[in-house]
């Protein structure tokens, strides 16, 4: 039984990781051996990496990606935290409507918004700017943050807030000094999810930008060209694809220590 599960685990991991290995392998291959079909590069080279880092557009794209991703995540977290807390704790008129609307936004096919957004942003002067991407990212990251965070807030015993109130805390102090520290693991998880969402987006990035002023890394990669018109930029694309996964990996590794379960242990009985 254990063996069978182990086998299935290995199978799933291989299935998930082989394409990644393939991309990594491609990124180290010399252009002349790109099509040789072997998993291990026969002729190793770092020229693909050197090439993309000499490409100003790609570097600019990385900066755009990081900047736009962090700002969108931050804003979505600030509003998402407050909204999720309200949903988890308070009974207010229109609560169901709010939950329904955020679910609606999460379900909405983004492709259908591209054309209207393009027109709106052009007439507002937001087209090809950072805010032009940050705004739609916040819009689509918010339902995600509200949903995951309210689940986390519901886990925190309401009696802790009542205790804080009795101890003389204002509602904001109770939230900031008691609830938020306990919700940190949930907030980190949510922030990572929101950041990955912004980081991965291609649709808005390609349709709401026209220059490297705001074009993010995934969109920039699609504009790569080979060194001559007869050469495919496969190696550079592979190298860029590897590079843009690195910030996510760092982000997750950096915060994973904070994503520990059982932080609320000892609050109430048991």
């Amino acid at each position, binding site marked *: 039984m254990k063996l069978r599960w182990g086998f299935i685990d290995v199978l799933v991991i291989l299935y998930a990781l082989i394409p990644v290995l393939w991309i990594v392998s491609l990124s180290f291959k010399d252009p002349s051996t790109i099509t040789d079909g072997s998993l291990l590069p026969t002729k190793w080279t770092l020229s693909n990496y050197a090439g993309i880092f000499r490409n100003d557009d790609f570097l600019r794209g990385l900066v755009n990606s990081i900047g736009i991703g962090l700002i969108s995540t931050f804003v979505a977290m600030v509003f998402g935290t407050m909204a999720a807390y309200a949903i988890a704790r308070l009974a207010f008129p229109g609560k169901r409507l709010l939950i329904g609307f955020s679910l609606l936004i999460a379900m909405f096919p983004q492709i259908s918004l591209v054309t209207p957004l393009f027109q709106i942003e052009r007439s507002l002067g937001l087209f090809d700017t950072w805010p032009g991407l940050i705004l739609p990212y916040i819009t689509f990251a918010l339902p995600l943050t509200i949903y995951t965070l309210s689940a986390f807030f519901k886990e925190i*015993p309401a*009696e*802790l807030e*009542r*205790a*804080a*109130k*009795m*101890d*003389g*805390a*204002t509602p904001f*102090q109770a939230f900031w*000094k*008691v609830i938020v*520290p*306990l919700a940190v693991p949930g907030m980190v998880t949510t922030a990572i999810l929101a950041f990955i969402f912004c980081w991965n987006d291609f649709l808005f990035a390609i349709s709401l930008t026209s220059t490297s002023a705001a074009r993010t890394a995934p969109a920039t990669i699609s504009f790569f060209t080979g060194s001559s018109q007869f050469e495919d930029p496969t190696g550079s694309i592979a190298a860029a694809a590897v590079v843009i996964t690195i910030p996510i990996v760092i982000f997750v590794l950096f915060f994973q220590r904070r994503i520990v379960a059982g*932080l*609320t*242990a*000892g*609050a*109430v*009985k048991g």
Partner: protein
Amino acid sequence: MAEIVLDGVSKRYPDGTTAVHDINLTIADREFVILVGPSGCGKSTTLNMIAGLEEISSGELRIDGERVNERAPRDRDIAMVFQSYALYPHMTVRENMAFPLTLAKLPKPEVAAKVGHAAQLLDLTALLDRKPANLSGGQRQRVAMGRAIVRDPKAFLMDEPLSNLDAKLRVQMRTSIARLQKRLGTTTVYVTHDQTEAMTLGDRIVIMYSGVVQQVGPPEELYDRPANLFVAGFIGSPSMNLLPAQVRDDGLHTIIGVIPHRSRGLPPEVVAGIRPEAFQDTRIRGGASFTDTVDILESMGAEKIAYFTFETGETGESGGTAFGDGAQVVARLDPKSRAREGEPATLWYDPAAVHIFDPDSGVNLTA
């Protein structure tokens, strides 16, 4: 230190249910008052209204003569101990206890001194740097108490603070709380569903049932002169025997025989209440008696509890089930009693110790 006055305080929810109905209660300075009743009787709601965690629908709450209905909990200067303790899990014991003081922006040395003093009082000094997760139930309970006493509030509110402890620790903490309250002299309102806790702790007990105060008084008074059937059945353990009775000229006809009693002024049907400890198996001069087979005898060491089952007539040609078709009578006997399980015993009681209740209104006609 403060006097708390509830003047016609009620709590109604938007869906129309009334949780607490028109409470009038004056809690004197330094007094230890217990709110007791079965679950859902409105005792916790009442406490939360005093705390400010729930809004008061009507009536007025005054602390030290000032109306505080509209004040937030932090402006009422009262501390609360919760049933679940509600310790902040991300803070150490020291930080937990210092939390109310740091919120009040006291200077650091003063905070340290107060926390140190409270920790000493509660024997928590060795635990100050631990997190709540690494404390036992009793220790958590003491930290919760410490957080309440550290800022020297006008009053303590305690919401079933002992119900999560095991039986032995509960008795121990009960006496500690009583001693602490006497020592600090802080007005205390204590909610419990446990009548033993209520009887042993309080200066005065408030018995509530379905949102209405049934009786207010010192423990002895509630025990000796219960105002109605509910109080009679709630206070005392084992609880009072309540026997339906027909009033005739020669006395009250019940399943344990005729209880000699004047019948003048009584309705034709009443409920006779006899405390288990009113029975004894030695003869009382001028007393009444009944004889029946002892069904179950529980020997508790310091006392023996005898159960008698009487067929009520309507049920059981088969002789009843283990759950007792028919009325049960409980007697609390001396440990030296010669009563044996399965053998008949004769028990005596003083008819003057019998309480008589109106079966419809439940009012005690003898009190």
